[in-house]
Each structure stands twice: as C-alpha cells, then as structure tokens.
C-alpha cells in the first residue's frame, strides 16, 4: 500500500484546501515556528483514526477545526483525505477490489466525525483496521510527533516497555 497524497481543508491553520503529494524517498517539510508543519503531521494521525483530542494538543475534538484568525472567521467543519495506491491488493477484503483507496474524515462542529472510504461511509474502526494491517496508524512507531523524543527519554521503565509491545 503506497501513500499518494493527503489533502487538508479547514483543519487547524489550513483554512484553504491544501494538497501534499507523497512520493518515494525523503520529503522534507520546512518553515518558521508556528507556520503549520506539525499541523500536517496531526492531520495525518487524525485521518488515520486518532480518537484522543489530547494527542492533537486539543481539549476537545472540535479544536481541530479552523477557529478563526484576525482576518477570517471560524469554520464549522474540517476534512482530511488520504489517497492510497492499492494495486498490490493488500487492503482488507471489503475494499480490496479498488486500485485506489480514498479515505476521508470530516468533523462538523458539535456533531462529531464521519469517515468515508471511496465515498462509502464507514466506522472509525474500519479505517483503523486498514492501517493496522500495514503496521501504520495514528499510534504506530512510524509517526513520531514533536516532543516524542524528549518524552521517551523522560519516560519510566514501564512506559518504555510499552514502546516495545508495538513490535510484538
């Protein structure tokens, strides 16, 4: 399963729909403090099914919706969509007939999130399963959030052992 692109709309500081094409090798994301780099990382975790608002630096899940700036008013929904290449046919049976899989999550203020796979509405669990099959996912060792390194260094012996459990 290969990642082709991620599209972010209304999610945190990404008011305008923004598409990032994903490609092989090393892709760098750069920019000044506070410009939105970690917001991209959080958008990726979020569309993969992250259910804890605290993992996105928020108090409630509505905190991921663009909350307005000095010049633009707050939005009422946020949407993130990932496109995956499934030509190797490694997806769960219910979606494996497709060559391309589009997963999107949309949240409306005070109405919660809805998930879609190729436009068909599914549960959060179905999306988490697609990623779990490939050892990918919001909590996988493959996604290292800002501050995670310090957290590992400061963590207790038990918390560190939990890191190990993901490999099992």
């Amino acid at each position, binding site marked *: 399963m*290969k*990642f082709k692109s991620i599209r972010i709309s209304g999610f*945190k*500081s*990404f*008011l*305008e729909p*923004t*598409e*990032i094409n*994903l*490609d*092989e*090798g*090393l*892709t*760098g*994301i*750069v*920019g*000044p403090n*506070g*410009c*939105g*780099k*970690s*917001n*991209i*990382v959080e958008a*990726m975790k979020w569309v993969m099914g992250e259910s804890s608002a605290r993992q996105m630096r928020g108090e409630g899940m509505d905190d991921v919706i663009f909350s*307005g*700036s*000095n*010049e*633009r008013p707050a939005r009422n929904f946020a949407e993130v969509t990932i496109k995956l290449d499934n030509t190797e046919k490694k997806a769960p049976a219910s979606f494996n007939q497709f060559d391309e899989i589009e997963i999107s999550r949309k949240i409306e203020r005070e109405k919660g999130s809805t998930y879609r796979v190729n436009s068909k509405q599914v549960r959060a669990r179905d999306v988490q399963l697609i990623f779990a099959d*490939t*050892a*990918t*996912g919001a909590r996988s*060792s*493959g*996604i*290292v*959030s*800002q501050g*995670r*390194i310090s957290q*590992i*260094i400061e963590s*207790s*012996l*038990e918390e*560190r*052992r939990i*890191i*190990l*459990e*993901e*490999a*099992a």
Partner: protein
Amino acid sequence: GRQRLKNSFELVNKNFKNLFKKLFGGGDAELKLVGDDDPLKAGLEILASPPGKKMQLLSLLSGGEQALTAISLIFSVFLCNPAPICILDEVDAALDDSNVGRFCNLLDKIVDETETYFLIVTHHRLTMAKMNRLFGVTMEQKGISRLVSVDLEQANKIKDIA
C-alpha cells in the same frame, strides 16, 4: 502473549545494537528487561556507551546522545514491521552536524531496504540538504497556512525557511 513479547524483545534488541552503532559511528548499547520476570510487567532499561565512553544508563548521557539513542530505539521497533509511511517531527532538534549526517545516511539506508516514504519536519539545514524534495509551509496571511514547493537549490537562500 509473553513468548511473543520475549521474541520481539530479542529482535528489537538486535536492531537496537546495530542501529546505535550506525548512528553513533561506533560504541555499543543494549536493552534490558528489569524488575519483573514477567515480560508483560517488566520495565525496559536502556544502556549505552557512545564511542570511547563507558556503558551508562540513558539518564547519564548528554542531551544529544539521549536523543540519538531514543531515535535508535524508535527505528529498532519500526524495522520489526516497517510501515509504508514514516513521519518524523523535529526528531533531529538536539543533534549536532555530524550526528545529523549519520541520521540522514540511516534514513537513506532504510529507504533502500523498505521502500518506506519519509515525511521529515526539520529546522536543520543539513537535514534539509539531504532531502529528495522540500515543501515549505508559510503563513503570509497571519494564522493561515499555505504550502509551497521549494527548489532544493533555492532552499539555501531562503533564510526564513528555518
């Protein structure tokens, strides 16, 4: 359950020793399950000796040495079951130039072996220089993010990028 964790531990420890040497350009390190015979209740101790130094608990190492050791641990687990995508948000913040160099060499090696796509957020000029492509995030309109493709040659001239 327990046996599977024990087996994973062996594999992660093997990866860990190997990756530590690559990232530090030498030295040695090891993981230890401590405190309980039951691996599901034990704690994970991390010991490391950067080249020329004595084996010590992670807590006695320098800030940058601790960060590089933590990176070794993360990749040791990752390589047990490499995912198609790996996203790293400023993991190189505490590293000096020579450690960043070895970190980037390791990324290239992992790309060759696993075909994983890497997304790497960084402020480090050396890391940027080793990327295959760069996206810049800007906020000309205060509070609103925009993405721009950055020409790798141009990158060195844009001093606000980092």
